[in-house]
């Protein structure tokens, strides 16, 4: 299992990445404290991760007041679900981002709202990656970015939109104007390709 989602950086990003790595390790240690029930660790974890988790909530909900309400839920979940975090196999900030995404997605669905596609419509109308995809594809955060880049553009967009906007299969099928089973087939095929590609360390197994 690749615990490191921060390797494979070039020299130009080394300095900032060192800072990021120090911060990441601090979050790891604090999360271990939270797992043991330390309220002080929880307080410090909140201060260190609050802006990131809020950014994720806003990125999906696109509404300040809804993000405000969901923000407390994120930390409630971090406290109550800390047993699901495995410090030997995952970085805490990856897990915390996952918790924040799920809190946002749950709220989006409980409100019966569809994702805000406007931010991403330019990407859908073009084969060229948009800002969000560019941020992901040009990232030095591991082989996944390279494997994503090897997917068919339509599949890549579907995968990226599913993750970044928190869209459901139903939302995506409506957006791409295909039957839901077709959309499921696209995504599941893409996920299988990504798994093979990442395990092959980006040796070109993702493309057809």
């Amino acid at each position, binding site marked *: 299992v690749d615990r490191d989602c921060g390797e494979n950086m070039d020299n130009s990003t080394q300095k900032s990445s060192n800072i990021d790595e120090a911060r990441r390790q601090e979050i790891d240690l604090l999360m271990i404290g939270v797992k043991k029930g330390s309220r002080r660790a929880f307080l410090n974890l909140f201060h260190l991760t609050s802006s990131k988790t809020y950014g994720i909530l806003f*990125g999906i909900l696109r509404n300040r007041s809804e993000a405000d309400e969901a923000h407390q839920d994120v930390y409630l979940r971090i406290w109550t679900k800390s047993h699901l975090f*495995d410090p030997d196999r995952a970085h805490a900030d990856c897990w915390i*981002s996952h918790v924040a995404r799920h809190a946002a997605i749950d709220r989006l669905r409980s409100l019966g709202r569809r994702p805000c596609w406007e931010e991403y419509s330019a990407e859908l109308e073009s084969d060229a990656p948009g800002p969000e995809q560019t941020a992901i594809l040009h990232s030095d955060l591991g082989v996944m970015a390279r494997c994503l880049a090897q997917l068919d553009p339509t599949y890549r967009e579907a995968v990226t939109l*599913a993750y970044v906007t928190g869209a459901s299969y139903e939302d995506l099928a409506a957006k791409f104007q295909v039957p839901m089973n077709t959309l499921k087939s696209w995504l599941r095929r893409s996920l299988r390709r990504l798994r093979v590609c990442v395990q092959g360390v980006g040796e070109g197994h993702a493309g057809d």
Partner: protein
Amino acid sequence: MQATDVSTDVQVAEYVFGLLSPEQNASIERRLRNEPELREIYNFWLGNLDVMNAAYLPLANSTQYSDISRRIFGVEARRPVNVWLKAGLALAVLVVLVVKFRILLALLG
């Protein structure tokens, strides 16, 4: 990877993406507690998909830790301490005032 492993792998990836129903999410989370192999798959996707979080920018916010703390831990454990502390301080101030008033009366008398 066996066929069943592939479907499990995809389902865990769907869980990480947030594509499953609340019931399916709860089922996966229950299994994660007891199945090390499933945790392995989960952590594979968790770590590798983290690159996608680069799409979200950190944002300043007005969330107060005290609100979260109150919601999780409650205030019952702290409130009696605060109440007694405040009551004690008020009593101490009252005693000082009474003593000063008596000294003043004695000086005037």
